[in-house]
């Protein structure tokens, strides 16, 4: 059964993962399709979800509440005869009735007494249609009963109208028509240069005339051309380079060769620049070596730059660190001085007279001076006196 749209997760059976059919609920409040639960129970008599024992299904399960059943009944499904042309979408509770009684695409036994095939309900009145006829469009033999669907859906020679532009064409030419249909959506001609517009082919001409990218377009094309040319030239250049190197090598390694021979060899070189493979590889090797050299020098340069950068970055940090350290020292000094001051003051207050009601103006000190005997608890006491405001 094909459901229209997404089914709520809560209405899906955890065993078969489709919408519940004949839902039952267990004593532990889990809902399953009746069939699924029976099958699962036969193997293992526990609730599949939480493994609570389910000894007898009949006594420990009951039909799911009406509200669940109603929600399930309201789910819309497609008529199972959709492949045969029924596009009906209907509440699940009604679909069975529709198929068994009303849907004229339902297959029923052929009315002819000696025919054992099936036929769509709407064709019953026409008698047995199980004989072959030739399709008038493509000439293929088709069963009379299936002729209509063949012509509607399959026959390639049947004419059809384009959904977009109403143009009539033979179905087998569908692809060709799509290529030229004025209503088909295509991308702008300047898409490679960044235009994101998409529109029907008919309106595209109009768009292209005013497209913001039309100025860039020709320039871009020229650029691409130039680039291609450049790569070709580069390739040529490399070839030339190699040839020059080879020639240099030759002149160097074989100076003893007589002029006569080298003259003889020279014209041949133009067609085949490297006669021996060794020489070719030697030149390749040389270019490689020079490349490696260049790379290593670049590497050292990068390394140097990196260490310089690192140095530059860490210097100010170090400076700041010493600064912070000195500030910390100063702060520590201050704290020590203040503590000393406080201790001296307390000694004075204690000596003056135990109560300490007229304590110094600091708000915390009244508490501290009154309960100075239990020093370790001071912190929590102050906390209780002045709870942090949130």
């Amino acid at each position, binding site marked *: 059964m094909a459901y229209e749209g997404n089914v709520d997760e809560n209405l899906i059976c*955890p*065993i078969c*993962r489709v919408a519940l059919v004949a839902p039952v609920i267990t004593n532990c409040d889990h809902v399953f399709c009746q069939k699924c639960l029976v*099958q*699962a129970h036969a*193997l*293992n008599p526990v609730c599949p*979800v939480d493994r609570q024992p389910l000894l007898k299904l009949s006594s420990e399960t009951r039909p799911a509440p009406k509200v669940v059943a109603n929600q399930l009944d309201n789910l819309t499904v497609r008529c199972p005869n959709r492949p045969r042309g029924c596009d009906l979408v209907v509440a699940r509770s009604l679909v069975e009735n529709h198929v068994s009684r009303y849907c004229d695409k339902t297959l029923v036994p052929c009315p002819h007494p000696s025919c054992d095939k099936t036929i769509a309900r709407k064709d019953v009145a026409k008698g047995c249609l199980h004989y072959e006829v030739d399709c008038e469009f493509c000439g293929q033999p088709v069963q009379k009963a299936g002729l209509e669907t063949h012509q509607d859906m399959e026959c390639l020679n049947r004419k059809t109208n384009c959904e977009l532009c109403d143009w009539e064409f033979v179905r087998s030419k569908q692809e060709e028509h799509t290529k030229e249909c004025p209503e088909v959506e295509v991308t702008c001609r300047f898409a490679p240069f960044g235009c994101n517009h998409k529109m029907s082919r008919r309106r595209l001409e109009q768009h292209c005339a005013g497209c913001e990218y039309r100025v860039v377009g020709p320039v871009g094309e020229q650029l691409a051309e130039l680039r291609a040319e450049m790569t070709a030239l580069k390739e040529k250049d490399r070839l030339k380079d190699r040839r020059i190197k080879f020639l240099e090598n030759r002149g160097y390694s074989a100076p003893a060769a007589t002029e006569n021979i080298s003259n003889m060899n020279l014209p041949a070189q133009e067609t085949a620049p490297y006669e021996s493979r060794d020489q070719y590889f030697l030149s390749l090797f040389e270019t490689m070596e020079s490349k490696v050299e260049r790379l290593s020098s670049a590497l050292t340069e990068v390394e140097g730059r990196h260490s310089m950068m690192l140095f530059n970055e860490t210097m100010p940090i170090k400076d700041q660190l010493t600064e912070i350290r000195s500030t910390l020292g100063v702060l520590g000094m201050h704290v020590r001085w203040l503590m000393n001051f406080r201790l001296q003051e307390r000694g004075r207050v204690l000596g003056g007279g135990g109560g300490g009601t007229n304590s110094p103006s600091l708000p915390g000190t009244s508490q501290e001076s009154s309960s100075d005997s239990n020093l370790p608890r001071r912190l929590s006491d102050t906390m209780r006196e002045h709870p942090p405001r949130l």
Partner: protein
Amino acid sequence: MSSLGTKRLGKELANEQVSKSLPPGITLVKADDLQEWLLDIQVLDQNPIYAGETYRLKFRFGKQYPIEPPEVVFTKQENRPIPMHPHIYSNGIICLDLLGSSGWSPVQNVESVCMSIQSMLTGNTKNHRPEGDADFVSTNKARPKDIEFYYHDNEV
């Protein structure tokens, strides 16, 4: 396979392929039919026993799936060893209660089984095979499902 099984597996497959809903560390390798699937599994935290390794799980679905459990084993291939674990034999058979008939529940699915195995590996600290591994591997001819495991060890 029963129609329930085909439908369910089809749904699971669609779910995993279309929405790519598999959790991290688990990838579907092959699911050409509804009888045998291959999945790759990785342990994502820094457990030194499994770091950097990928293991291959083979699921075989019987006729009764999801009513009956699938057969799940590790398979050994190049770059796909059998993970070291006191409940995993060196032939890939996994001793895990939820893969046996009594521990299985039809509510489980491929994804949840993979996640269970993944967490079983993640939580493990013992780098050895089960006791009697060599004996078991050389003598066992039964299908994993039919082996009577004794699920005694709940520590790992």
